[in-house]
């Protein structure tokens, strides 16, 4: 098992901002990748207009600059020792195609359990009108290298 040395990780660390436009192409790619047949991005949308699936923003925390700096750019073998252990979502509004989304996040907890280090990252996604889209809580764990 790969052991990781994560430098500079503290409770309260601000992980920065990540902005992107939720293009129709991006939504369609996500629908294909997840075999989504709910019809929300089509005529079966319960909102009367096409909307993105609630989990379209599922990986946003990964792209926060602080997360990339702490966990990704330090390792030759991408995430070889980092395990995605838990995930929470609270959905407020579906994201609309074409809207610009902004994601912010921070580290809210770090602890040791069962021989691993665990970090909890809270992130929030809003659209360009300030509408809350989703709040996410991601828990990752790894074996600390000495």
């Amino acid at each position, binding site marked *: *098992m790969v052991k990781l040395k994560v430098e500079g990780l503290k409770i309260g660390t601000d992980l920065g901002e990540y902005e992107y436009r939720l293009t129709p192409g991006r939504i369609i790619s996500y629908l294909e990748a*997840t075999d989504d047949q*709910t019809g929300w991005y089509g005529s079966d949308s319960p909102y009367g207009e096409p909307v993105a699936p609630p989990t379209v923003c599922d990986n946003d925390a990964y792209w926060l600059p602080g997360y990339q700096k702490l966990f990704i750019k330090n390792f030759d073998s991408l995430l070889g020792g980092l395990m995605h252990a838990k995930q*929470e*979502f609270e*959905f407020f509004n*579906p994201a609309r195609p074409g809207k610009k989304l902004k994601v912010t996040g921070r580290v809210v907890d770090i602890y040791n359990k069962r021989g691993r280090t665990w970090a909890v990252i809270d992130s929030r996604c809003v659209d360009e009108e300030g509408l809350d889209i989703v709040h996410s809580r991601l828990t990752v764990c790894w074996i600390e290298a000495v």
Partner: protein
Amino acid sequence: MTVASNDIEVGYRLPSLIKMVTLETSQLYSGWPKYRHYHTCEEEAQAVGFPTVVLQGLLPVAYISQMCANFFGKCWGNSGKLSVSMIKPIYPPQQLTTRGIVTGKTTKGTAVRVTLDVWVEDSQKRKVTVGTASALV
């Protein structure tokens, strides 16, 4: 297909979704060929100690969300909560089955928060992702 209502019975079993996941599924979800790592490349997976490519944990979560979207309808997008643990790695190919069961109802003003136990089983019927979901109906 929305089924949830405030008089849904505790014990109601949601219609399951069945998804076949293969190496190609994992590659499509995780950005192959742009991203070469243990979710997309067998060689990279074996280099860090896995027998083969590991499916990204968020993909079964997306399947659970689809099951809940079918069950709760619009309420899922506006009030859905999901909390899951990834308890076993998933090595494709696998048949994944989502499952959900109503476990409780709590009155919140004029609405009712319906709570579910949710999980995903692999081809061997082992639980790989487990947790809870809820929405206001």
